C-alpha cells in the first residue's frame, strides 16, 4: 500500500511461514511412498531412499504388501473410493441443480422474507452430531441407514444453503436488464433464464459445483454414523484403518489420505478466486 518491496526480514518471515504451511503436505506425500521398512523408523526418515507405489497398490489389492513380508490391510479401499465418488458426484449435481432454481427465484423474484437466509445460516450452525441423531432414527425406521440414498439426501440438504447462496450472489451480479431484453424479444421467463441467465453465470456455476463437491467429498460425521457395511467413504475408511491397525500401517493410511486430498487440492486451485465467496455465503467477493 505504501511500501512497495518486501524487506529482508519480511522475506524471512514469509519463507518461514511457507515452510510451516508446506511441511505437513510434504510429510504425507513422502510417507505415502515409503516402503514398509521406513514407515516406523526411528529416527523418522524424511525422504525415502527407495520410493515405492506399493502403498497405493495395497489400497486396491490388500495382498500387495506380501512381498515385503508385512501383513496387509484387512479391507480394500476400493468400495470407499467408489462410494465417495458416487455420493459426492450425485449429491453435488442435485444440490447445485436445486440451488440454481432457488437462487434465480430468490434473486429475481425476491421470494422469501428477510428471515429465510437467517434460517439457512442457522442450519449450518447446528452441530452435525445433533442432526445425525434424528437421522439415524428416522432412517432406520424407513430402511435408509447404510444406504447411499440416505447419505446423498443428507449431503444435498447440508450443502443446499451453500449452493443457493453462492449462486444467488452470481445471479445478483448479472444485470436484470439482460434477461428483460430477452423477455421483450418474446422469450418466456423460464426460457429467458435458461438461455440467458444460466449461460451468463456459467463461470459461477462451475465454481459453485466445484465448491459443493469439496464440501461433499470432505464430509465425515454423517458417513461415519450411517455407514455399517453396505456403504463407505474415503474419510470413514481412513478412520477405520487408523483404529483397526492401531496406527501402524502408516504408508497405506498415508496413501489413502493422499488419494483423498489430491482431487480437492486440484479443484481448490481451479476455483481459487471464488473460494472466499463460497466460504462466506457470497458475502465477500473477489
Amino acid at each position: 500500500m505504501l511500501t512497495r518491496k518486501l524487506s529482508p526480514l519480511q522475506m524471512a518471515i514469509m519463507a518461514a511461514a511457507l515452510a510451516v504451511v508446506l511441511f505437513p503436505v510434504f510429510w504425507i506425500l513422502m510417507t505415502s511412498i515409503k516402503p514398509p521398512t521406513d514407515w516406523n523408523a526411528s529416527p523418522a526418515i524424511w525422504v525415502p531412499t527407495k520410493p515405492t507405489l506399493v502403498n497405493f497398490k495395497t489400497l486396491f489389492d490388500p495382498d500387495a504388501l506380501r512381498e515385503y513380508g508385512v501383513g496387509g490391510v484387512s479391507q480394500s479401499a476400493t468400495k470407499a473410493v467408489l462410494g465417495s465418488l458416487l455420493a459426492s458426484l450425485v449429491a453435488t449435481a442435485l444440490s447445485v441443480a436445486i440451488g440454481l432454481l432457488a437462487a434465480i427465484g430468490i434473486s429475481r423474484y425476491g421470494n422469501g422474507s428477510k428471515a429465510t437466509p437467517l434460517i439457512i445460516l442457522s442450519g449450518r450452525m447446528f452441530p452435525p452430531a445433533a442432526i445425525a441423531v434424528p437421522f439415524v432414527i428416522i432412517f432406520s425406521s424407513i430402511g435408509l441407514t447404510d444406504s447411499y440414498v440416505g447419505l446423498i439426501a443428507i449431503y444435498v440438504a447440508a450443502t443446499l444453503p451453500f449452493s443457493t447462496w453462492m449462486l444467488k450472489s452470481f445471479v445478483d451480479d448479472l444485470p436484470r436488464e439482460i434477461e428483460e431484453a430477452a423477455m421483450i424479444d418474446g422469450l418466456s421467463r423460464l426460457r429467458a433464464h435458461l438461455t440467458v441467465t444460466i449461460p451468463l453465470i456459467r463461470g459461477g456455476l462451475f465454481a459453485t459445483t466445484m465448491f459443493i463437491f469439496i464440501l461433499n467429498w470432505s464430509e465425515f460425521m454423517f458417513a461415519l454414523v450411517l455407514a455399517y457395511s453396505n456403504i463407505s467413504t474415503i474419510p470413514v475408511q481412513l478412520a477405520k484403518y487408523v483404529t483397526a491397525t492401531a496406527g501402524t500401517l502408516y504408508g497405506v493410511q498415508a496413501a489413502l489420505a493422499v488419494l483423498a486430498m489430491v482431487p480437492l487440492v486440484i479443484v481448490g486451485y481451479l476455483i481459487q478466486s471464488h473460494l472466499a465467496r463460497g466460504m462466506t455465503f457470497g458475502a465477500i467477493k473477489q
Partner: protein
Amino acid sequence: MTDITGTTGMTGIAAIEKEAMALPPAAVTAGGSLPKAAKPSRIGLYLTLPGQIVSVLVLVVPLLVALYMSFTDWTPTRGSLLAAQLVGIDNYSELLVWDTRFIYAVIRTLCLSVVCLSLEFAFGLGLAVLFLREFRGKSVLFSAFLTPMMILPVVVGYIFWMLFQSNGPVNQMLEFVLGPQHTVEWFRSAPFAVLAVIVTEVWHWTPLFFLILLSGLNSVPENPVRAAVILGASPRQVFWRVVMPMLKPVIIVAFVIRSMEIIKLFDEVFMLTRGGPGSSTETVSLYIYKLAFNDFQLAYGAAAAFLVLLGCLAMIHLLLTPVRDQLLAGGR
C-alpha cells in the same frame, strides 16, 4: 405454465420502458402486449419450492423429531419413539446442573475457539499485509498459502496425528533443537494434546482468514489512504486508524463464518485424540457423538445438541448484528 409466458415483474417495468426506447418497433409491440394477469411471485415460488421441500424434509423434520425426543427418556432399547415416556425438562436440567463433562466440553470448546480464532486472525492478517507488497512469484505463493484449507479435515487430523507421533518429525525437530530430553508424548499429556489440537486447527484455517482479509484489504479505497498520507499520518497510523476501520465488516464476516465452523469442531479432534487423554480435548460435538453413538443415550444427546444450538444462535446473532445486511444480501 401459460401464465408465466412473456411477462415481467413490476420492479422491472421502468427498466423495460427504458430498454424499449432503444429497440426496434417490433420488439416494442411484443413488450406492449404483456398480459396484465402477470404474477411474478408465483414463478419465484416454483423455483424455490424444490429447495424448500428438501430443507423441510431433510432438516426441519429431523430437528422437530430431535426436539420432541429431547423431552423424553428414549433409548434405542425401548422400541418405538412414540412409546417413550415424556420427562419434561429433566434432560436439560441434568445437563446444565449436574453434567460436568458437558459443561467442561462447552467451556473447552469456547476457549479453544477464542485461542484458535485469535491466532488465525493474527497470522492471517500479518500474511495478508505482507501480500500487499510487490514481489516475484506472488501468485504462486498465494496459491501455496491457501493449500491447507483445501485439504479435508479428516486428512488434516490424520497428517498432524502422524507429525505428533512420539517418533514423528515434530519430536525429531525438538530433539535436534533442544536436546533428547525435550521430546514430548503429545497424546499422553493433556496440555500437549490440547496444544496439538490448536496447532492443527490454526494450520488448517489460517488461510481462510488470510484469503478473506486480503480480499478486504485489496478493496479498501485508495483515496482515504492517500489523504491520510498527505496529511502526514505515519504508515502505522494509516493502517490502524484508516484501513482497519474500513476492514471491520470483512473481519466480522470472517469471525462469524469461522465461529460457526469451529463450534462444530469434530473431524480433526476425532482423528487426533478422540477427545483424550481422558476428556481433555473433548469438544461439544465429540461429546454429543459419544453420548449418542457410543453410549446410545440418544434423547439426552439431542437435548445437549439443542442447548448448543441455542448458545450458537445467541452468539452468532450478537456477532452478526453489525454486518447482517452485507452478509444476507450477498454483498449487494
